């Protein structure tokens, strides 16, 4: 029973980290209608930022500044935000699919850097010994995980509150107006490009924060953490939960990560280890089928977009 509880804590830490990334995607896609196919790129930038800044010095690797983790997390958000600026400026004025292709491209490029720029990323070996905050306080592994869970909960709670406030503010209203009818919003003097860029950068910063927390939680980040499968998982989380709804984004993250972890555990138990590569493939196929079914049968997700009314406005 103790083991199950300990696993549950571990599971929730990861699920909520992905929930944070999913909240970032929800701001971009759910509220601003920006199609980001490079989620993993922004996640990886954040993860490597924390790895480079907060880990102890290591031979043949740049960085290792032993900085405190909270500072690393802020830097992770900034690094992902800057990456988003670089992709957003040339593409956000164009048709929505161009952003999709460009974000796909930046994710591929970041994956190549993760794999090949060994002095920065450690290549296939990755970067190790990434610390967690306040590790000295905890001797017991479970207690340490429990503390990390509390911290992640606090961060995701703050992000949720901030996002809810933002989408209910005039800023959020303009964002949805642009998503629904750009011409109408522009004719009222709203600069669609600027609003889109803001939403894209803030969303990417949240993805970077998720990546930074992930690196700190696992203690390791490698080229395998920059694969496009993660982008796909985050998208499935958002679609399953219901895009345009922040509760849905977090709920979807927990549900889909649960399904992913369970199917992985199930296949590892049932199939012999020689089939590990094929079991991994089967896992992706399963999640893909879930996405296909949700898209076709319940396109709004578990909880669809709620009608957002600004604070103080009369609800009809």
């Amino acid at each position, binding site marked *: 029973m103790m083991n199950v509880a300990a696993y549950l804590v571990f599971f929730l830490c990861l699920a909520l980290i992905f929930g944070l990334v999913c909240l970032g995607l929800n701001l971009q896609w759910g509220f601003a209608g920006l199609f980001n196919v490079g989620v993993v790129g922004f996640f990886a930038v954040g993860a490597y930022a924390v790895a480079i800044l907060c880990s102890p010095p290591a031979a043949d690797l740049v960085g290792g500044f032993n900085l405190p983790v909270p500072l690393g997390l802020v830097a992770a958000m900034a690094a992902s935000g800057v990456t988003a600026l670089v992709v957003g400026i040339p593409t956000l004025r164009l048709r929505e699919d161009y952003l999709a*292709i460009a974000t796909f*491209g*930046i994710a591929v*490029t970041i994956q190549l850097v993760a794999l090949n720029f060994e002095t920065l990323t450690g290549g296939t070996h990755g970067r190790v010994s990434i610390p967690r905050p306040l590790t000295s306080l905890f001797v017991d592994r479970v207690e340490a995980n429990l503390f990390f869970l509390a911290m992640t909960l606090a961060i995701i709670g703050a992000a949720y509150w901030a996002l809810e406030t933002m989408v209910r503010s005039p800023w959020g209203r303009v964002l949805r107006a642009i998503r629904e009818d750009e011409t109408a919003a522009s004719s009222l003097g709203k600069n669609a490009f600027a609003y889109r860029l803001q939403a894209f950068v803030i969303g990417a910063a949240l993805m970077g924060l998720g990546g930074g927390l992930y690196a700190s939680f696992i203690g390791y980040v490698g080229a395998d953490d920059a694969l496009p499968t993660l982008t796909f998982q985050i998208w499935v989380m958002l679609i399953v939960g219901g895009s345009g709804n922040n509760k849905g984004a977090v709920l979807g993250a927990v549900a889909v990560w649960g399904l992913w972890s369970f199917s992985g555990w199930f296949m590892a138990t049932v199939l012999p280890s020689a089939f590990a590569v094929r079991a991994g*493939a089967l896992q992706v196929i399963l999640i893909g089928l879930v*996405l*296909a079914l949700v898209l076709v049968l319940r396109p709004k997700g578990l909880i669809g977009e709620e009608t957002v009314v600004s604070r103080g406005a009369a609800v009809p």
Partner: protein
Amino acid sequence: MTLTIWLQAILDGAVIGATISLGAIGVTLTYAILRFANFAHGEFITWGGYFALAALSAFAGWRDLSAWLGGPIEPFSFGWPLILAALTAILASAALALILDAVFFRRLRRAKIAIASVIGSFGAALVLRNLVVLGYGADPEYFSREIQIAVHFGPGLRITADQILLVGLTAALVATLHLFLTRTQMGRAMRGVRENPDLAAVSGIDVAGVIRATWAIGAALAAVAGVLIGLTIQLRPSIGFDLLLPLFSAAILGGIGSVYGAVLGGLVIGISESVAVLVIGPEYRAAISFGVLILILLVRPQGILGART
């Protein structure tokens, strides 16, 4: 570095560019007629290659047939079995695309959310790729393990007979497609839907038929690209996914909807990749097309041959 090395890089790039062109034509047609960026298009390349591989091993298991078909045709590395396998792959890939459209993309189109198709295609891409991993594993496969001796070509340049055939076949397919689009009823209907789908529909054009033709042609050309990659390089489950960025970059570079643009874009991307490898090394090859893409989007987002909309 000597001039020969640069010329050889341009020649190799043109060969790769020809295969990119075949894939980019499908991307550009899907984008222009079905109006979405199809992230699953690369998988038709992968599946085309593996369909041919499956057909080849089926032929090899059938002794009488392989004896009748005979060995390689000089000077190429392959013979009739691969030609038959390629035709099988073309038909099978077109069928795969039509099935995929009938059970999945048609429903997403009906939902009237343009981007649902893009998300759906991204999911379909990962599922299709992993189905190949499920069937064949992740290790590379080859049509034949024979090593082909390159022939000399011009001042110290080398090219294999298979590669010359690849470029020639691509040119022939593009010419055929041009004739199809300009001289046949269906080709004209496709161009009509590309310009204005609503007007095409009220003019009595069979839009559903045009959509089916678009899928079938795109997947068939992609299958040819897959077979050619299997012939000249190797087959891996990730070939299509890895080519996705070059395909999109080529289609956008040439101008969305333009078949010649896609061919031109494919050649430019292929040659830039190949030449850039000499300068920055092979590790970052896949990022070259991203650099080219960002450059076009900044300078001329409608592409070289595209009209401003």
